[in-house]
């Protein structure tokens, strides 16, 4: 078992390294942008899955937390990061300096978003179902309006990640996907442990969960904080790869899109959310010609899925290669016998 996971890990690192080296050489900038956006969408979707699909707390203001992460990290980079990066670059080779610096705005964005998540979550979690959803919607909008009124991060003009003499953009696909993989792995491991069963217990039946000693309020708050942390990381990645952010990118429509990823992929399936986020982010970009119809197709598709297959693509199961591997191994052994 250990040898297999070591092998898998090595393969993963190799793939990321290949991506880092190969992507800028093999893909044109348009596809690079799509790949970046897919990465961001994956983290956003999985983080929403954690709080909504696993813990059953329906949050429809998720883009608000992404906004906090995006703006916080951007502000850090623009006002302080330039200096730090330059200082690091004096001492270390360029690539290493950048690699050391960029986790900082990511973590800062995540941390501030987590704080926002606590501020929203702690009062809102007294509410149930529809009311919670509406409260999160309201908070998401309030966050956006507040950011819009902060001139230091651009206000209505948007915020550009530029500082004199320093490139604050981070577009290394390999590093970006390393962050994606780590984020998804962290969330998956937390959700699929015996302690993580508490999340789903809260979703299934709060009163029963309390009766067996699960501190449901604390679990919900934790889910909210974790989910907003990673939403913030996604926002920070978005900010640093796009190089320019505006609150329009974090409106309720964005929250809705992320919710579509989660619901279509299957509430409670991390792999479902990953697949849905990837496909639904890539498709409209590649079908650019359908511009105006995009949202209509989304909405129609969503309604159709909800009516015909409300459990989404994967339901609450995960893509698991193991049964396939086992079958392949058996067939292989039989053939050799």
């Amino acid at each position, binding site marked *: 078992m250990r040898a297999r996971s070591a092998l898998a890990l090595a393969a993963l690192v190799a793939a990321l390294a290949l991506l880092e080296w190969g992507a800028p050489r093999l893909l044109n900038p348009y596809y690079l942008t799509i790949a970046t956006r897919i990465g961001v969408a994956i983290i956003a979707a999985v983080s929403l899955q954690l709080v909504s699909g696993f813990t059953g707390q*329906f949050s*429809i203001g998720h883009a608000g937390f992404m906004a906090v992460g995006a703006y916080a990290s951007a502000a850090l980079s623009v006002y302080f990061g330039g200096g730090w990066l330059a200082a690091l670059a004096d001492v270390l080779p360029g690539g290493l300096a950048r690699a050391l610096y960029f986790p900082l705005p990511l973590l800062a964005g995540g941390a501030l978003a987590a704080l926002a998540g606590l501020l929203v979550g702690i*009062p*809102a979690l*007294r*509410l149930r*179902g*529809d*009311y919670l*959803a*509406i*409260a999160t919607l*309201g*908070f998401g*909008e*309030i966050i956006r*309006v507040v950011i819009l009124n902060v001139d230091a991060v651009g206000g209505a003009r948007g915020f550009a990640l530029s500082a004199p003499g320093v490139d604050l953009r981070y577009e290394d696909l390999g590093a970006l996907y390393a962050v994606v993989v780590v984020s998804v792995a962290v969330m998956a491991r937390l959700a699929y442990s015996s302690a993580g069963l508490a999340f789903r217990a809260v979703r299934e039946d709060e*009163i029963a969960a309390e009766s067996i000693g699960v501190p449901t309020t604390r679990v919900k708050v934790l889910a909210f904080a974790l989910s907003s942390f990673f939403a913030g990381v996604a926002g920070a990645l978005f900010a640093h790869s796009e190089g320019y952010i505006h609150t329009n990118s974090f409106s309720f*429509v964005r929250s*809705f899109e992320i*919710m579509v990823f989660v*619901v279509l992929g299957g*509430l409670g399936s991390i792999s479902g959310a990953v697949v849905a986020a990837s496909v639904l982010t890539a498709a409209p970009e590649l079908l650019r010609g359908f511009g*105006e*119809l995009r*949202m*209509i197709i*989304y*909405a*129609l598709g*969503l*309604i159709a899925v*909800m*009516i015909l297959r*409300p459990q989404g693509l994967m339901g609450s199961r995960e893509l698991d290669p193991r049964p396939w591997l086992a079958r392949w191994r058996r067939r292989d052994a039989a053939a050799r016998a």
Partner: protein
Amino acid sequence: MENLLQQLVNGVAWGSIYALVALGYTMVYGVLKLINFAHGEVYMVGAMTGYYTARALGFAQEPSGLGLAVVLLAAMATCAALGATIERVAYRPLRHAPRLAPLITAIGVSLLLQNAGQLLLGADPKFFPPLVASREALRFGALAVSNIQLTVLATAVVLMAGLELVVMRTRVGRAMRAVAQDADAAALMGVPVDRIIQLTFLLGSALAGAAGILVGLSNPKIDPLMGLMPGLKAFVAAVLGGIGSIPGAMLGGLLLGVVETLVAGYLSSTYRDAIAFVILIAILLYRPSGLFGAAQQEKV
């Protein structure tokens, strides 16, 4: 002082429009426990129907009482049909699905209507025909009430009174109240629940259509995305009054209209939209059942 009274009059006029839309939310929530996110778009369709009907029938050039009546009826009928269709196609199949499904579907329908509206009608704003001349109708010193405001108030009052009558004094209304209290029991008593739910949507959407016309009169610039904010605000009004409560929706709408106008008048108009959200959060945190709603207990 007179300025305050003027603001109050303005606020009540707006508030009655919010109330008409809020009624649709509250009635649907009462019978289905569903937040009909698409309701704001029904209101938009009402305004748009009014616009196109007036132009098609030649009422668009000058004030006309007949024009107003025709347009009002057309909008109410169209919206009623739209609301009933949405219920039949998008919500009824999900009657027994987990609570999140109809919520998401409702959001989907809302976005569908917004974007379809933009595609089919063009995203640029249109100007609602001046069916009621903008003239001062009443004056008390510095306090002025315009023709339009009077029309809005009168129409809203008549419609709300009509609704009260239907809900409280007719058999059908009693059936609606029964379904809102306990749909299963009502079904056992022989109430045709599906039909009553359809009727609820019909009535609520018709009111929203009327609200769309009244808004067109008061604020002639209309566009396919006009339903978003007012829809959200009317929802807040319904929650404020106690979602599921008809008098609550009326009071909530009026209150919201007044508070909003006062805030815009005395503090700052940029916060006008934010006020609704602040009220929403405050209600949800301190009194989720609203002014007239009943607190819900889960039986263990």
